[in-house]
């Protein structure tokens, strides 16, 4: 993974000093709450329902074991002993004291971490595929490009007060596990006929109040021009994005208002001034960064299909876990393993300090000392030897990470909701838990198959409910917490936005509602048909009829 040099380290350390002084001035009354607010937000610090929440940046989801141990230490020393993996691959702490935040940042800096631009109206953490570098369907490794974008976006002087937050995602594989079409900018690595690398550029996708799938404005941007082209997009947005209404301030509104074609013309006109200038990326720089992402010291191994099948036969629990929680690796004899942070009864994405320490140890022993956070709020050991899979499974079971539900209905993406977040209209964690309890039969869960169930406690959509096959949105109905259900969303390559089922439901009714929806699917599906495919074939009506049928 990327290792800071003296320049990177200096910038992060200067940031600690700067924020320490800003915090001091705020506490001394020299900065008003209003003046401090954008400063602390750009450092990932929210004032929440009970305490501040600090969001630590995990660039493109990648962490070393030393960094994971630091997360454990911070959870122990400054929080209540746990941390939360966010839907943007970051780590959140829900209970730090404001006064402690400068010290937390200083500790983070010792392991090359920070909280820069994890909130606020600026360019946020660039996200990518959690299987980057190991996926079999990968065309190029997106991580060097994410790191190049991270450096470009860190304290960009011109784009530090944008109309609204700005999110970039990069995909380098045939499947899109980074949901690039629902980002402000989505970059897809492509090769042209000559075999040269470029990016297909989408703009104006996003969730939130006005969910939109992005529009492609450039089918092939040669890699050398990535930064100058991003500068051009951001300059057009910074100048012309709406600032009069925060709900219409995202770039998607500008792209829609201008039309993608006119927006693209404006970007190209701006880019014409920048193209081939000093920000043109050099092969040397790309190599310098990419050298940090070369393969680890893989051993020459062979796939152990027969051995693993034998273990499957002897241990049905192992078979189930292997089926759901492991992914094929580009190297023979290796496999990527997802640690499920979604056992029933634990808030999705929460991990304790002890679990984090244990994960760091597992990473050191099984996976070259690195882990990845996924936007599905799980943690991945990407480089596990297949011959180690069985002992690893045993350890994961003891630690509570072996729930065989990755990609299944109970692998719920869920924001912190009204239990923690002051923006939320409704709680989300208890709804997730009630649904997990209802679907506690593993056979049934496996029979239902791939299903993304996403819950957001408000229309800011941190739980990505618009792109859930089943999406749940907390709404306020005359002071009561209600839940709106939508169906048919997808964050993949065939991205689509979910369709609202109808009037919202009380919290207690939610497990019944989800159960009815699943029953309709099970009745209507053809062989091997997924929930999403069935929904796309039969439409919303059968679901609507069942869920809203009068009770007799």
């Amino acid at each position, binding site marked *: 993974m990327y290792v800071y040099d003296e320049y990177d380290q200096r910038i992060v350390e200067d940031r600690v000093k700067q924020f320490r002084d800003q915090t001091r001035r705020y506490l001394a009354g020299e900065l008003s709450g209003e003046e401090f607010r954008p400063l602390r937000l750009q450092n990932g610090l929210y004032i929440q329902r009970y305490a501040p929440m600090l969001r630590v940046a995990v660039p493109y989801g990648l962490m070393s074991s030393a960094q994971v141990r630091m997360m454990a230490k911070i959870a122990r020393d400054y929080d209540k002993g746990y941390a939360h993996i966010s839907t943007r691959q970051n780590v959140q702490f829900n209970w730090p004291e404001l006064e402690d935040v400068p010290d937390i940042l200083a500790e983070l800096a010792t392991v090359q971490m920070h909280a820069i631009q994890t909130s606020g109206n600026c360019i946020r953490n660039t996200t990518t595929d959690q299987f980057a570098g190991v996926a079999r369907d990968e065309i190029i490794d997106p991580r060097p490009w994410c790191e190049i974008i991270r450096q470009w976006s860190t304290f960009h*002087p011109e784009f530090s007060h944008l109309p609204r937050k700005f999110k970039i995602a990069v995909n380098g594989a045939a499947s899109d596990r980074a949901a690039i079409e629902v980002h402000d900018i989505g970059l897809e690595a492509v090769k042209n006929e000559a075999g040269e690398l470029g990016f297909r550029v989408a703009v104006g996708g996003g969730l939130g109040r006005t969910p939109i799938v992005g529009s492609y404005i450039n089918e092939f941007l040669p890699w050398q021009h990535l930064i100058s082209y991003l500068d051009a997009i951001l300059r057009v947005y910074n100048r012309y994005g709406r600032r009069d209404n925060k709900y219409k301030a995202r770039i998607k509104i500008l792209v829609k208002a201008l039309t993608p074609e006119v927006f693209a013309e404006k970007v190209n006109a701006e880019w014409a001034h920048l193209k081939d200038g000093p920000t043109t990326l050099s092969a040397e720089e790309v190599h310098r960064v990419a050298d940090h992402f070369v393969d680890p010291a893989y051993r020459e191994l062979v796939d152990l299909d027969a051995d693993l099948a034998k273990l499957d036969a002897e241990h049905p629990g192992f078979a189930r876990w292997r089926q759901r929680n492991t992914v094929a690796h580009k190297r023979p004899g290796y496999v990527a393993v997802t640690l499920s942070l979604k056992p029933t009864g634990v808030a999705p994405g929460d991990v304790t300090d002890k679990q984090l320490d244990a994960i760091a140890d597992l990473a050191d022993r099984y996976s070259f000392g690195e882990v990845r956070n996924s936007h599905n709020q799980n943690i991945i050991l990407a480089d596990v030897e297949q011959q180690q899979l069985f002992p690893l499974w045993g350890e994961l079971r003891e630690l509570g990470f072996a729930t065989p539900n990755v990609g299944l209905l109970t692998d719920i993406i869920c924001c912190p909701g009204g239990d923690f977040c002051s923006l939320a209209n409704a709680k989300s964690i208890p709804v997730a838990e009630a649904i997990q309890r209802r679907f506690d039969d593993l056979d049934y869960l496996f029979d239902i198959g791939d299903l993304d169930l996403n819950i957001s406690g408000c229309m800011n959509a941190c739980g990505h409910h618009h792109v859930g096959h089943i999406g749940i949105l907390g709404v306020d109905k005359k002071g009561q917490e209600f839940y709106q259900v939508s169906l048919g969303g997808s964050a993949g390559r065939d991205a689509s936005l979910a369709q609202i089922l109808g009037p919202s439901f009380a919290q207690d009714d939610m497990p019944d509602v989800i159960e009815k929806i699943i029953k309709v699917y099970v009745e209507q599906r053809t062989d091997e048909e997924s929930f999403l495919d069935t929904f796309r074939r039969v439409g919303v009506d059968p679901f609507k009829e069942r869920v809203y049928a009068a009770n007799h």
Partner: protein
Amino acid sequence: MQRIIKNGQIIDETWHLLPKDATLDSLSNCDDYIVPLALWVEHSTALKARDGGLGVWLEAGEEIEEIAADLDNFQVIALNFPAFTDGRHSSTAYLLRTRYGYKGEVRAIGDILRDQLFALKRCGFDAFALRADKDPVDALKAFEDFAEVYQASADEPLPLFRRRA
């Protein structure tokens, strides 16, 4: 008298910043004025004929393209920030310096606070009229916030990747 920051020094203000509704009649011949864009657009000939110094100021939504051909007439171009979180004029300053080659003073006015100065300077501002309740001496410390920066901007034509040792 207001004090402003100019090239990292604190100096006494000598310019008169005219409000948006200012008329030509309110100007003396010899004083230095920063006039609103509308006044310049309407009375450029008369304004050029004066003996005093001339500057123009732009509201956050006013575009630099409108006066791109007139820049030689101004010793100062002031850019107003209705709120420090309104970053539009960061792009304006960048364009003034890099695209239009403007060498005069580019001044940030309005809701200008210490914690924005480092980035604004990078974008091409060389003068800052802090919000009246803020101490410019204290604000000078902001220019030392960071020893290194990643991006190219008006202050540094080369991105860090072309400068790394």
